[in-house]
């Protein structure tokens, strides 16, 4: 397989956006192409994440974007893997370039949920679960992660304060991210005093419903070298699944797909997790960050929730996790989140992350999960080939 580079990134601000999916994703794609110095006519195709097309009664988003970019002949495919839609889209674009079939591909995603109320959104978000046994019999999407949190507390003695510390960290990081949905610091007291959504998770343990679109340009190493002296390399690409229903898992405090996708990506990169300088992980809820960091092998099982409290996972800590603010505070436009993490990885590697720059970042891992882990995409990026 060929080496693949990311040469351009684009992202709208996250939050409430007046624009529609087609407008946001077209803008993000054009920004990524301009950032890369690639004319749209050089694009061979695209994969885009979009989980809730129904919110705008507009499916089949790809051809609308390609047409707006002036390249209606180029093929595009919408990828749906719940919250991992854009991470999965990136992987498909990577396959197209790595295989030698194509030279330049777009990967991105978009989501528009501010058009619907909280009740409707709560219903839609549960559609990514095993609906017969989870969403349809009373469990909201926060409820599934809440059940994981209850199990984590029961098995490991994790506390609500531990989880709140993760929210405090990610909110603090997001203050320095001009594109974040929640650019506001919170305290442990704020988190614990906020409404309980599904015990033990409070309102501030949960990511917001965000609008937003993100896109990146992938190309072969050969093309990248013509565009820039400092391309960002895709060092590893991993994808895996887990049994969809939480009750069918051996453990409620671990996501098997994270372990498998990370193993695949690390093997491809020829690295161990200790070689990675910073992590953008899927923290749709505070407990999700704790479990992700355990499954990635950063911390021992049961200790992931203690790390924010100890300062380890802060931007200036030993293991920076979610310097962007994460899904928790940067926001979670479901179909755009996966490539949004990759936008952050590229900015950090280029030294263009502004106030949230992690000094000397050479290697970044992104981790994107669909639902409670039925889907997972892990990618590793670096400033060198491997």
């Amino acid at each position, binding site marked *: 397989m060929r080496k693949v580079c990311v040469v351009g990134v684009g992202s709208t601000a996250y939050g409430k956006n007046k624009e529609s999916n087609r407008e946001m994703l077209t803008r993000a794609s054009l920004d990524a192409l301009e950032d890369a110095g690639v004319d749209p006519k050089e694009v061979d195709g695209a994969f885009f994440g979009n989980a809730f097309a129904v919110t705008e009664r507009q499916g089949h988003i790809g051809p609308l974007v390609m047409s707006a970019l002036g390249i209606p002949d180029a093929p595009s495919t919408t990828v749906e893997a719940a919250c991992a839609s854009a991470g999965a889209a990136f992987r498909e674009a990577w396959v197209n370039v790595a295989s030698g079939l194509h030279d330049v591909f777009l990967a991105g995603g978009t989501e528009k949920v501010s058009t619907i109320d909280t009740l409707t959104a709560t219903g839609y978000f549960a559609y990514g679960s095993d609906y017969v046994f989870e969403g349809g*019999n009373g*469990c909201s999407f926060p409820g599934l992660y809440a059940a994981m949190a209850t199990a984590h507390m029961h098995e490991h003695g994790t506390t609500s304060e531990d989880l709140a510390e993760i929210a405090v960290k990610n909110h603090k990081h997001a203050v320095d991210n001009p594109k974040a949905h929640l650019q506001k610091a919170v305290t442990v007291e704020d988190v614990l005093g906020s409404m309980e959504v599904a015990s033990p998770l409070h309102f501030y343990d949960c990511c917001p419903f965000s609008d937003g679109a993100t896109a990146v340009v992938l190309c072969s190493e050969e093309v990248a070298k013509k565009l820039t002296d400092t391309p960002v390399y895709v060092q590893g690409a991993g994808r895996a699944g887990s049994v969809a229903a939480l009750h069918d898992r051996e453990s409620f405090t671990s996501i098997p797909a994270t372990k498998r996708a990370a193993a695949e990506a690390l093997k491809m990169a020829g690295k161990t997790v200790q070689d990675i300088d910073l992590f953008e992980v899927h923290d749709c809820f505070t407990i999700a960050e704790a479990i992700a960091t355990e499954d990635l092998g950063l911390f021992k099982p049961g200790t992931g929730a203690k790390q924010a409290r100890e300062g380890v996972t802060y931007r200036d800590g030993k293991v920076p996790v979610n310097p962007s603010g994460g899904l928790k505070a940067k926001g979670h436009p479901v179909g755009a989140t996966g490539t949004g993490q990759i936008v952050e990885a590229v900015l950090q590697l280029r030294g263009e992350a502004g106030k949230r720059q992690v000094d000397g970042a050479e290697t970044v891992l992104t981790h994107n999960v669909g639902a409670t882990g039925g889907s997972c995409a892990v990618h590793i990026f670096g400033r060198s080939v491997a």
Partner: protein
Amino acid sequence: MNQETKTVDRMLIKEQVDSLRDGKVVGYTCTACDKDSITPIVRCPECGSGDITTKIFASTGTILTYTIQRVASELFINDVPYAWIIVQLDDGGPRVTGWIPYVSKPEDVAVGDKVKITTSYKPGFMFEKS
């Protein structure tokens, strides 16, 4: 080509859900390795066998984990707060999910609590403490 095919005693999910509503726990079992599953399977996730049949399981069990739902989707909007639970059924049966109405306080539900299935007016299993 006249291949011999194995007949899997498959239910429609709707029939399964209807039987759950009557408090009858019908699921699947692998005749090769005895793996049980409430979730529909046609190949055993443990041993790969295709010898899957339906089976009626115990309607009592133990809570493995739970959440007290205070914000629900439309289907359950008039029922909050309530507990949503994952249960290990007795007699070595599968794990199932369900809900217990009128649970609002942390002391009302705990990991390890014994529960039994009652007739439900909602999709899926409704439990009560036993």
